């Protein structure tokens, strides 16, 4: 796979918040079509890393390249326009709007307009189809309910649908599985596998290691903002430094 240039490459990325290094000297690459998992204990800098890549936070040093183009320090809306979408760990729906109207926002975005050749088409119909794809039962009219009335499982799927609506090439999912039951996770996994079949590149930040290892091609492990391991799920869990990070030091 090394002969293919990476889709996203992060080199020596660092970010500090008030003197504490949230992300320190992290480098990794993602090739097209790959599913990369990022794991680590709480406070290890995973979400900061997502915020850095998507432009919500400006890095202290280091570079982020997407398709060979330096996107370090770009504004979030410009990064999205290139085809990098994200979901939020804490779901961020538009609570006052019905679920399907939530999707009108990404469907109205400049990126979707450009990809559709300047025409938007029937956004309401596209929104309803997308919601059905992520498991909103059409017969039960869940899609018409106001987002504030939806349970957590649906809000997580809505979050995923909002990123899919942007027709991205790379989706970064920040703890999509957290707060979901085993059954709900099992129902989202096929959606993710379908995205892979469509050729999307995925980065998944996760705490649910078992579910992640089953679908991830490769995993990197963060601890205190530093990358401490990289490899397949089994490989990284064998590593001494990872065991120490998760289980603590033996005394």
């Amino acid at each position, binding site marked *: 796979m090394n002969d293919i240039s990476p889709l996203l490459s992060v080199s020596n990325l660092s970010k500090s918040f008030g003197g504490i290094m949230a992300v320190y000297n992290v480098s990794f690459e993602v090739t097209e079509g790959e599913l990369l998992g990022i794991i680590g204990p709480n406070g290890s800098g995973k979400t900061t890393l997502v915020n850095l890549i998507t432009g*919500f936070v400006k890095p202290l040093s280091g570079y982020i390249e997407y398709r060979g183009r330096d996107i370090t320090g770009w504004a979030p809306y410009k990064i999205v326009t290139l085809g990098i979408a994200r979901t939020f760990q804490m779901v961020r729906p538009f609570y006052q709007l019905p679920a399907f109207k939530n999707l009108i926002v990404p469907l109205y975005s400049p990126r979707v307009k450009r990809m559709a050749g300047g025409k938007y088409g029937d956004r309401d119909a596209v929104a309803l189809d997308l919601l059905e794809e992520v498991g909103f039962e059409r017969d039960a009219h869940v899609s018409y309910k106001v987002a504030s009335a939806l349970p957590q499982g649906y809000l997580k799927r809505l979050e995923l649908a909002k990123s899919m*609506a942007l027709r991205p090439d790379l989706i970064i999912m920040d703890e999509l599985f957290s707060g979901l039951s085993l059954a709900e996770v099992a129902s989202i996994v096929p959606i993710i596998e379908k995205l892979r079949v469509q050729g999307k590149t995925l980065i998944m930040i996760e705490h649910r290691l078992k579910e992640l290892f089953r679908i991830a091609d490769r995993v990197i492990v963060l601890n205190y903002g530093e990358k401490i391991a990289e490899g397949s799920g089994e490989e990284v869990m064998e590593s001494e430094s990872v065991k120490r990070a998760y289980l603590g030091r033996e005394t």
Partner: protein
Amino acid sequence: MKKRKERIDRGIKARSEDIFALSSHLEMIYLLLPRAIPVAGLLGVAPFLSSYWREVFISTGVYALLAISWDMLISAGLISLGQSLFYGIGSYIAGALNCYWNWPPLFTIPVATLGGGLVCAIMLLPVLRLRGIYFAMVTLVLPLMFSRLVEATRILGGTEGLTGLTPFPNQLVALYVIDLALLSALFGFRRIIDSDYGLIVRAISDNDRSVMSAGFNIHWYKSQVVLLGAAVGSFAGAFGTHVDMFAGMPGFALDYSIMPVAAAVVGGMGTFAGPMVGAFILVPLSEILRALGALRIVFYGLFLVLFVVALPEGLFHYMQRKYHQCERWVEVE
């Protein structure tokens, strides 16, 4: 034949806010009535009013426009405590053009509307990143700064202001100008906010980071909203200046900032019609209470408190809900 009750709007709204399926005259009247009331009320009543009440409704219209402009900003999540900034800038632009270059109101008002909107939007551009109370504080301070600037530098007539400006031909013309402006702002803004563009604006107030991650430059959208709101506010200022035949420091007074907020709270935010209804209650009420003399403000304050406690959602939201619940008898097979 059995009968049961059914809501009139059942079937009209086919799961959508913008497509209507009408099947009877009753349904058409049901839809038209709430839209016809403000048009008929504003345009039809004007000729029958006494000179005193015409004057009251002219100033009511000015406050109602400022309230609608305030509501535009709030729909993008921007809390403004400085509507008098828009009023003052619009009033000084129109006043200066009329006083120094003798432009007639027909030109000063449109120029002040556009120019005032642009000037205010550019001025607020650097603080659009601020949210909530921080944005509110900046808007509160700006008009106070401007009135002191005029006082200290003695530009634009200093403390005396610009006097002897061209008035409208007569009261009725002025009343119709403000009423037409009010209706255009009301229906125009309601249309904008119901479109998909308006959906993005409302989404920014709901969750701005989510809109950013959908690929929108939210600061660009916010500045467009400020431009729209400020233009309407500046129109009110330019209009008021020609009615009063005077442009001066009172244009930056706190009244123009506080009254729109009170009107929006009484009438119901986020609907444009609500703040307008609120202004049409509060301003005439304050005139009626004049008979009470010194106790006027006490009763006025009491009314405001009672209203906010009894109907916190605002009068318009309440009326809208009740109207949607209107029922008719239908036959059951």
